[in-house]
């Protein structure tokens, strides 16, 4: 009998919550603000959201993985601490400049967390079985594609810092690509689980690697063109990379053919070279990546400031509230890992990376133990999305790879990203609940045959 492990989850959640409270207190004390006046509101809100999520999991997905919810909560808490810390810095600067006090971001981020929590619960309550998603494969695919190109639409589309990835409706703005990545992962899973058999067919072998039939190259070429389109028209390097990487990885998992990885890699190199030699904004990113110091006052300013911040953090960090994370532009969004790295040191960065690794590893485990192909592909795809996004953004702000504008899952300030990542956790929990739930065949061995037949 599989253990439910819900109490483990609760204990870990309490730990994650406590860490958030202590971190917020430390920021308040270290910056001289004193105990944050609304600490108990924020601590209370986080506690309520986390408890509600936990309760819904307990009822609706009792066998779900017990690690993912606490890890997501802990990462969200770390983000909230740093956003509050940057709020303090912004407010102080505004005060010194005699300019009006800026609206603190931490409360809107808390609101987004609450909304994310509601959607998390909605997914677990409304979606009893993840296989139902498979029915709407092409609907999700279409909506996902529309969402992805939505920022290009007139009037509502908005360009921020050179990249067109925002949609503004009234006073409300969001990044549709964040939602799109979930829908597209569902689409890929549903599409590939049906077509994998033909895509896995081998016509010729070159150097021991089986190549697919030329006519099966259609889907990957379409995906390639779409990601190039995103790169060229929306100038969104991150989403483009994420989209193509996700498709190729899922294709590989579905068909079990390494040749797709090789073809994907060749297409990626070709596309990257094409973009580099034809589009100034891509070339600029690469130039800065190769030598940020030469451009430290201009295009390399962000990355150089990020490196200075990380270096200032050293091993143990400057301490929460005691560094200068606000010197890095976009510290609360793209560069939140540099901000955390400065104040928590490499210790903190390692811890954060390990939390991500844990979350992704749990996602892959759910995929492996899942009993249906669609669920396997979906869980793998969602984990791949997380992994790619974490690598691309953290690799970017630390100068390992060229900088792309992606949010840091759970940590970054921003509603769309937070909601999307919590929906991903909800879906992974749903799948892991299905796969860890004891087989009913074990309960009544007599019905074993019927059970097997009834399985998809």
């Amino acid at each position: 009998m599989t253990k439910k492990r819900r109490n483990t989850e609760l204990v870990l959640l309490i730990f994650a919550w406590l860490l958030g409270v202590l971190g917020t207190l430390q920021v308040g004390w270290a910056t001289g603000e004193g105990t944050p006046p609304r600490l108990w509101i924020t601590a209370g809100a986080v506690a309520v959201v986390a408890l509600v999520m936990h309760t819904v999991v307990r009822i609706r997905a009792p066998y779900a993985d017990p690690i993912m919810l606490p890890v997501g909560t802990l990462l969200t808490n770390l983000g909230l601490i740093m956003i509050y810390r940057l709020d303090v810095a912004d407010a102080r600067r505004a005060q010194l400049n005699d300019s009006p006090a800026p609206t603190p971001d931490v409360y809107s981020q808390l609101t987004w967390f609450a909304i994310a929590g509601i959607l998390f619960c909605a997914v677990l309550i409304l979606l009893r079985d993840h296989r139902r998603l498979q029915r709407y494969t092409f609907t999700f695919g279409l909506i996902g594609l529309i969402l992805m190109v939505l920022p290009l639409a007139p009037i509502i589309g908005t360009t921020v810092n050179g990249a067109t990835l925002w949609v503004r409706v009234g006073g409300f703005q969001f990044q549709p690509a964040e939602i799109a990545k979930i829908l597209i992962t569902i689409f890929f899973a549903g599409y590939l689980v049906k077509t994998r058999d033909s895509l896995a067919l081998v016509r010729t072998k070159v150097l021991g690697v089986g190549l697919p039939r030329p006519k099966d190259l259609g889907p990957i070429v379409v995906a390639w063109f779409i990601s190039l389109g995103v790169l060229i028209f929306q100038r969104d390097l991150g989403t483009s990379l994420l989209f193509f990487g996700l498709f190729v990885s899922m294709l590989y998992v579905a068909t079990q053919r390494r040749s797709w990885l090789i073809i994907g890699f060749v297409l990626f190199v070709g596309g990257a070279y094409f973009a580099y030699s034809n589009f100034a904004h891509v070339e600029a990113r690469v130039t800065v990546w190769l030598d940020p110091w030469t451009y430290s006052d201009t295009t390399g300013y962000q990355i150089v400031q990020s490196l200075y911040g990380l270096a200032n953090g050293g091993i143990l960090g400057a301490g929460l509230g005691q560094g200068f994370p606000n010197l890095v532009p976009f510290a609360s969004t793209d560069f939140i890992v540099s901000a955390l790295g400065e104040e928590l040191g490499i210790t903190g960065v390692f811890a954060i990376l390990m939390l991500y690794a844990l979350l992704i590893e749990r996602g892959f485990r759910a995929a492996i133990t899942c009993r249906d192909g669609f669920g396997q592909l979906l869980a793998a795809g969602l984990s791949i999305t997380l992994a790619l996004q974490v690598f691309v953004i953290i690799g970017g702000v630390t100068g390992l790879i060229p900088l792309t504008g992606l949010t840091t899952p759970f940590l970054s300030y921003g509603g769309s990203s937070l909601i999307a990542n919590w929906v991903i956790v909800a879906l992974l929990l749903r799948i892991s609940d299905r796969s860890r739930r004891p087989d009913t065949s074990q309960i009544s061995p007599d019905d074993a045959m019927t059970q097997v037949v009834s399985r998809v």
Partner: protein
Amino acid sequence: MSRQIRRLSFVFGLLLIALLVNVTLIQVINARDYRDRPGNQRILLAEYDRERGPILVASDPVARSVETGNTLTYIREYNNGPLYAPVTGFYSLVYGATGLERTENRILNGKADIFTVDRIQQLVSGRQPVGGAVTTTIDAAAQRAAFKGLKGKRGAVVAIEPATGRILASVQMPSFDPNRLSSHDPADIREYYAELEADPQKPLLNRPVVSLNPPGSTFKVVTAAAALASGRFTADSILPGPKAYQLPNSTKKLRNWNGRECGPGGKVTLEQALAISCNTAFAWLGNELGASAIRKQADAFGFDHSFEIPLRAATSLFPADPDAPQTALSAIGQFDVRATALQMAMVAAAIGNSGRTMNPYLVQEIRGPDLSILQTTEPTQYADAMKPSDSLSLTDMMVNVVQNGTGTNAQISGVRVAGKTGTAQTGNDSPSVAWFISFAPAAAPKVAVAVVIEESGAPEVSGNGLAAPIAKAVMEAVLRR
């Protein structure tokens, strides 16, 4: 598909390792290199982020940190910057710090061990340390009087409280404005610094404590002290004071500045020789006493020693091994004798303080961020320069200088002032240096002063004409308290 997922997770594991290695390179291996890069503001910001403690004259902050609106949270502000520049120094983004800003840095930035208790609290609370305050020994009135007196001249003034060694005034002219060197605008800082560097008047030189000049006739009090210490001479001893003194083993003659005999028949008492600053008598006296006796006396007053007040003062010099003519010239403060204004103020102070040379100091108290006194400097004696009886005798001789001799411009009504004028030639054709050293009231002096004016371009009278009035103003400022 499970195998493919495992392989993929292995690939992501490799990517994770790449991230970990890269972050280690940045935060551990290359961290120091990145921190030291010139474009990295963080180290300076850390300094400027803290409220640096003030430098106080009495209770008036002459250097303090005020909040700004930009990324550098605090800026250093100097009230009366040029007036106190030789004391405070500057605190510059580009050129580091000088003066008390430098020597007392760990007090001012709150990192000194003296703040241990506070620092433990800071460690617990994670709060930035707040700097302590440094109270100087400077007397604002004396400082201002000296600054006013030097206006339009090039030189320095040092005033000392004889009984303790407290430095009451340390003034230079020309001076500079530390505000501009301590601004947040590196381009302007560099421009101003280059301007000061290029100035032939050398305003950045901390003249009161590092500028060395031949002390000229003011050094005669040292020779006189050596004479009294030898036991062979008293104030009334008769010395030869001809128009010119034939330097031993030399064809050259040393003349009196006015070309006259110092007394009837070329005879003069020691007291009278000092009063009229008779060169020939003191040159003769120098050779009578010998170079080592004079050096011993000079060293007891602080020559050939580097004082840290805590600014490092230049070492005043008495030549190491002069021959007979050189000794004669050294005895009247010429040849290779060199002294700072601080040193000559110490000579005057020691004579007034019954012959005891005190260690000079500029920091009276160190206070915590809450202004509670953490440490008070206790006066310490450097040496016994004279027997008390000799010092009384020399004091009387110096009072005579002011009352009846060359130093009449230092007279203060109702107060007995002891003093000595001086003029020195820095080279054959170079302009002369005017000096005046004094202390008052003679019996129990509250203040000793040395005034040096470089490039005075005037004869012997200039000590009295240019320097004595400044000394008088400084003494009056202290005595008026």
